């Protein structure tokens, strides 16, 4: 069954709308969908939505103590969206989240169409680096036969590619319009897609003669998403500004601007400089840092950024740090019994909280 791009766009729009408007993804939404084609199986749709949600949560966790804390609003698509560093993160996170989620569901065996697909490798070679339309529809019948052949000869385990092709189809399909902005977005989608593969963890098992290592088989294990989010945060710091408009003769080309061809698929790209996140911007739905909590926690698990968060979020933005002292009831001395039994005492503890005021 062939799917037209308009339909895909519609679905993607729905998907992103639901991610940004309501966080809880209910399975009822997938049942509203009129079409259950090979691409739009409800399971697939649900795993895409889960991926988007996962991406958002992880993004908010890793950016918790930054000025820009990955708000929900940045995940909703607007025409006015600027191609800033932060938006680069959003694109990469979303794209990585989709791949992660689809790949996991492939391993669960509930998605049709994943498995080893050697022909996709060929596709990505013949096609240009970025595909702006959703032309990349998988030749379903053909691939199924090919999978069977592959399985009955060499075995197949590589299911990241399906997630990648799907994320590419869904997210890259949205990038129409402004060339330079699309270019940055497409690039950041690519960064997000490839990050899953780059962060995979190799595990091996010896199963040769008498269980010795004369025969060893290794497989790639998908990393937990918080690790991927962490990597994206690191890449956020090293993001490069690109100049997409071809103004070679112009004086615009300075050393700080990297040319398109130079950026690798491990670097996030942006075009516009970020606004001052201290200040609220109602048009973007950004509330500013006023009222944000910060931390002066000095435990060994708190990061450097967390320790400096009051300085960074409040004082640098001209806010004062307000200190609240309150008593809260907390779970303590817990004993856990798998799966579902957590027995805790209730302790009252005085906590000190800080806010930007």
């Amino acid at each position: 069954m062939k799917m037209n791009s308009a339909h895909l766009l519609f679905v993607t729009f729905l998907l992103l709308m639901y991610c940004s408007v309501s966080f809880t993804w209910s399975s009822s939404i997938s049942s509203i969908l009129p079409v259950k084609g090979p691409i739009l199986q409800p399971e697939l749709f649900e795993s895409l939505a889960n991926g988007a949600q996962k991406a958002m949560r992880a993004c908010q966790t890793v950016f918790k103590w930054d000025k820009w804390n990955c708000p929900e609003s940045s995940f909703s698509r607007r025409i006015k969206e600027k191609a800033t560093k932060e938006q680069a993160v959003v694109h990469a996170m979303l794209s990585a989240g989709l791949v992660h989620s689809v790949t996991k569901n492939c391993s669960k065996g509930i998605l049709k169409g994943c498995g080893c697909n050697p022909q996709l490798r060929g596709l990505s070679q013949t096609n240009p680096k970025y595909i702006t339309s959703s032309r990349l529809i998988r030749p379903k019948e053909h691939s199924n036969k090919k999978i069977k052949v592959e399985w009955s000869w060499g075995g197949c385990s590589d299911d990241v590619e399906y997630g990648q092709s799907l994320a590419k189809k869904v997210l890259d399909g949205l990038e129409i319009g402004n060339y330079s902005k699309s270019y940055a977005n497409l690039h950041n989608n690519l960064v997000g897609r490839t990050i899953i593969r780059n962060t995979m963890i190799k595990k091996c098992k010896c199963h040769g003669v008498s269980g010795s290592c004369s025969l060893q088989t290794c497989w790639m294990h998908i990393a937990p998403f918080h690790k991927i989010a962490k990597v994206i945060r690191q890449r956020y710091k090293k993001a490069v500004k690109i100049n997409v408009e071809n103004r070679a003769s112009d004086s615009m080309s300075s050393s700080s601007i990297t040319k398109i061809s130079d950026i690798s698929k491990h670097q996030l790209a942006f075009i516009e400089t970020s606004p001052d996140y201290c200040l609220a911007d109602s048009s973007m739905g950004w509330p500013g840092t006023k009222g944000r909590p910060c931390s002066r926690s000095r435990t060994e698990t708190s990061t450097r950024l967390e320790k400096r968060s009051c300085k960074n979020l409040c004082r640098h933005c001209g806010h004062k740090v307000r200190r609240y002292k309150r008593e809260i009831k907390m779970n303590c001395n817990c004993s856990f019994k798998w799966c579902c039994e957590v027995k805790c005492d209730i302790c009252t503890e005085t906590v000190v909280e800080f806010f930007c005021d």
Partner: protein
Amino acid sequence: MPGTILENLSGRKLSILVGILLICQIACFLIGGFVAPSPAGSQSILTTVCYDDQPDLFNKNDDNRWFTPKCKSINLQDKHSGLNATNFVFMGKMPLYNMDFSRWHQNLVGVLQVEMEHKKEITTTNVIDLTLDVKLGYRNKEDPDDKWTYHSSSVEKRIVECSSPNKDGYSYSCSTVQLFELGSLHHDYYLLNFRIPVDDKGTNANLGFISDIYLIIIHMNVGFTKVWLSLKTVLFPVLIAIMVWFWNRVHLLQRTPVLLEYLLMIVGGTLAILDAPIEFLTLYFDIPFMLLLGDIRQGVFYAALLSFWIIFAGEHMLIQDGVHKNSLKAYWMHLSGILVGCLSLLIFDLCERGVHLHNPFYSIWVTPIGTNLALSFIILAGISAGIYFIFLCYMIWMAYRNISIKRSVLPTMSTARRLHYEGIIYRFNFLMLVTVVCAAVTIVSFILSQIAEGQNKWDENVELEVSSALFTGVYGMWNIYTFAMLILYAPSHKQWPTDSLCGDNGEEVEFSRLPTDPSPNEISSLTTFAGKASID
């Protein structure tokens, strides 16, 4: 009758033979590298958590109570009040997607990867004793969709080592544990159901918050099995033919075969057992002991080969004694090392793969006694290997020393006699050289295959399959080595030319014995070296 073929072969003929064998060797590497896929493949299956409303019935081996992909699934991230651990059954259907196993897949190893999430209120230890209540079922294509047949079940313990991330919501990184090993993959689909029982006696007490459990299955690849068996099918008759030819040669002589000839036959025979493509039987019959049998076949061949080396060195060392031992009894001390080593490995293998015939989930490594036992067998085997190696080195060194002593006497001999002894030394050196090269290639290829597997294979478009190439290459190499030994160390049929030894062409010189030679034993004629030297 003069000595072995090796001494009597002209340089040209020898180089032709070596050339042919080298071509066969290269062919073995190329077949593995370009025709075969990688030896084994794997699939990561994320187990589905199913809800079991009647947990008491789980252990009743009722064929109808299976949790299949159609079960009522549960999300572990949700809160489940009122449920306990026995209500949760982890399900994995093998293989994934719409595929099915073929009997060419040979065997199946299942590995578990537990993913745990760190939660503030849950403390766990870094070493977790995981107790699983497992059962395995199978189904064939022609069976109705829901008909799963019981295969085996067990309550098993595994030790999982984890390192804590110390951050709420983050995952532990845990070690993988082997869950089962099936020696034969006779059916089309397999279904694994397991649960993690928790009780007050401390079973699974240290378990943290499990987010996912992956089941990784490893099977041989169909293509590799096909190539492998074709290779065996080709090598087997060739070997049998060579052995028959060799034995005929030996029997043409008017004497009983000597020890080394017997040993060559033993090496050939054990290789024939290894080469016999009996794996074809697995395509029709369910033979769970095939994996164990494969281990034993390989072990027996290598034991024979190791014995051959030490006796070969020994037979060429006993120069000074003048006493001709020529019997296996003389080498009992040298061979006992091999025997002890092989026996301990065999017992270890029987303890692991042997028990797998009865219970595929069994592992010797989970109990302290089992671990100590397994380790002691492996250490014993290691010590025997060490002793063997020291013995072998000592004997080779002695042989070389004796040869070099006698070599200094060589110029005083008559030309014919000198050429003859040079030939014997040459025979010894030839085997040494070839053996060292083969052993080195084996070790290097083992290291290479470790490296090849160790690399990330992503984004790599190289068509060469390194580990398969090394696998078939090394296998082919020991076959060709044995072929060469059988051919070159077979008795020669050439008649002695009466002392007209030295042709003008140095290359065409064929070594021959003196007619006065009193010894009828060709292969150990070096042992009569000392006596000869004194005559000279």
